[in-house]
């Protein structure tokens, strides 16, 4: 709260009355705390966030402890259903499904989050440059984006995985190659709009360097949309990885992926449906959680919402 302080006024003439009434700062401190307040009121987003925290915890626990080794065969009778010893049953080789599901969570999270880290690392700078410098840079970038949109995702991913070999890193590279365009285009559009704003002109007129204008002024103003886009990108990447693994060109055995677990289970769906149901439910819940969270973030970070 601004207290009334009188300041020496140079020169003759009455001191101008500097208003102190009605100028008290609102309680809200920033855009972020504002957004956080709105996000907390979104029940689905909150439930999703809790689910995802649990999922991350499970994945972390799986690093040091799983009920059984995910790769040890014959810990139970093959195809056996859920029991006290094996909560989610066993698979075709008698491996514990719960243990494999926990390790699969690691894979899904690494792929989902890792992909978006690289998508942001690639898409944000390129989008900023294309949007800010326009002209030739933008034409070239837009052309490349359109070429990538023109080739089917699956084709790009399959070719890359054939060339590079199906390791976890290469899966991430392959998914980034099919997903970087959305982020680039979003940031480019944001930059195109923001560069015409008066505060950018003001920054330029105060002698700010181009790098400062891009990363210090334009980027902070597009963080909201970037975060939302990245959040929606995580489930898309997880689904794509599951799909690639389902087809057998993703994560290679014996490392479990929710996609390959479902594929394994499909052959035995009549006698052991739990083998398909367990990874499918895990996958669905995770995808839903990320999407609800993304929705919540979009509403919370929307500057037009002033509730």
């Amino acid at each position, binding site marked *: 709260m601004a207290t009334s302080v009188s300041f020496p006024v140079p020169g003759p003439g009455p001191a101008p009355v500097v208003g102190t009434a009605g100028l008290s700062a609102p309680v809200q401190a920033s855009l972020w705390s504002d957004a956080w307040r709105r996000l907390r009121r979104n029940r689905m987003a909150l439930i999703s966030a809790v689910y995802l925290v649990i999922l991350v915890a499970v994945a972390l626990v799986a690093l040091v402890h799983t009920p059984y080794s995910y790769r040890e065969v014959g810990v139970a009778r093959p195809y056996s259903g859920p029991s006290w010893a094996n909560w989610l049953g066993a698979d075709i080789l008698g491996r514990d499904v719960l243990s494999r599901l926990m390790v699969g969570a690691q894979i899904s999270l690494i792929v989902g989050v890792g992909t978006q880290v690289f998508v942001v690392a690639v898409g944000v700078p390129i989008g900023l440059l294309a949007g800010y410098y326009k002209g030739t840079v933008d034409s070239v970038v837009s052309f490349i984006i359109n070429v990538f949109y023109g080739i089917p995702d699956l084709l790009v991913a399959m070719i890359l995985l054939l060339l590079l070999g199906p390791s976890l890193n290469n899966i991430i590279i392959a998914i980034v190659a099919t997903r970087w365009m959305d982020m680039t285009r979003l940031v480019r559009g944001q930059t195109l709009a923001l560069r015409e704003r008066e505060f950018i002109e*003001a920054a330029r007129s105060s*002698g700010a360097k181009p790098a400062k204008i891009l990363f210090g002024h334009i980027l902070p103003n597009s963080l909201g949309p970037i975060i939302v886009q990245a959040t929606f990108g995580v489930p898309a990447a997880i689904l794509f990885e599951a799909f690639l693994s389902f087809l057998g060109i993703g994560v290679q055995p014996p490392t479990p992926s929710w996609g390959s677990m479902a594929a394994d289970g499909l052959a035995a769906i009549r006698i052991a449906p739990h083998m398909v149901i367990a990874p499918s439910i895990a996958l669905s819940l995770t995808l839903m959680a990320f999407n609800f969270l993304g929705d919540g973030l979009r509403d919370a970070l929307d500057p037009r919402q002033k509730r």
Partner: protein
Amino acid sequence: MPTPILQVKDLHTEFLTDGGVVKAVDGVSFDLYPGESIGIVGESGSGKSITALSILRLVPDPGRVVSGQVLFHDQDLLQLGGEEIREIRGRDIAMIFQDPQSSLNPVLRTGFQIDEAMLAHNKANRKQARQRTVELLRRVRIPAPETRVKDFPHQLSGGMRQRAMIAMGLANAPSILIADEPTTALDVTVQAQILELLADLNRDLGTAIVMITHNMGVVAGLCSRVLVMYAGEIVEQGPVEQIFEHPQHPYTWSLLRSIPRVDALRHERLRSIEGLAPDLLHPPAGCRFHPRCPFRVEKCFTDEPRLQEVAPDQLAACWVTMERARKEMGADDLIDIRPGAGSGLRKGELTE
């Protein structure tokens, strides 16, 4: 006579549009002396803002400064490289804009943005910059500057935001401050405070001010000299009192006449200038003001007048000038100031 700190010589700025070339600034020349404050007055679209932006080479696309010189300490700003002009911006010549609402970055704290203005020119480290920011905010009379530095722009009132913008402009102690309609977006009492602040800074810090405005009252309060722009050209310039008392260009005269007066009769009509500002894609031949001028003569339709001395220190670009219009056309008694009203020269009546 001191040497000018800034000399603008025959500046031409054009916009290449689909419809053709718009000459937004067409041969503007003026000098600015150290510590002086001049006003550039004109209607919207007269080229006053573009003149200011041209000085710092900030003309937006598709605009280009096509010719002329902007001499700052004998250095032509129009010839500098990108990095060199960036160094000048904010350090030697700073600018403040019309709308303080939109000229501060909404997601960054106000104090941080002022710090940045200093850091951009390596004038201080972060700690020194913050100290100076607090001093500057106090200098522009923002109460409790120690806490205000941490506020976001939306937490400040319009007047305080403009004060913060001025503080940012002053951050590097520039020798010239260009103010592009800094009071237009503010309400009247706040306007007066901002103008008083600028006048104080001009007097105490010796910062030369270029005030761009469409408001004659603003000029009267702050400036010692005034340039009147019309359709990309300077039509009259001189000391403020002289221009106010004895305007020689009919446009200046009409502008001054159109200021609403408190002592006007209750039902007296507001005096506006008839007609519209000219389309700069197809500027009128001869004097650009002739389609709206009450005192035009035949020559005005064909020949373009040059700026020439009409009184000591006072230049006007007019074939007639108000002195003659008063004597011969009864300008002072004229109620109807429609185009050609004084000279009786209506459009169709011109003999080719």
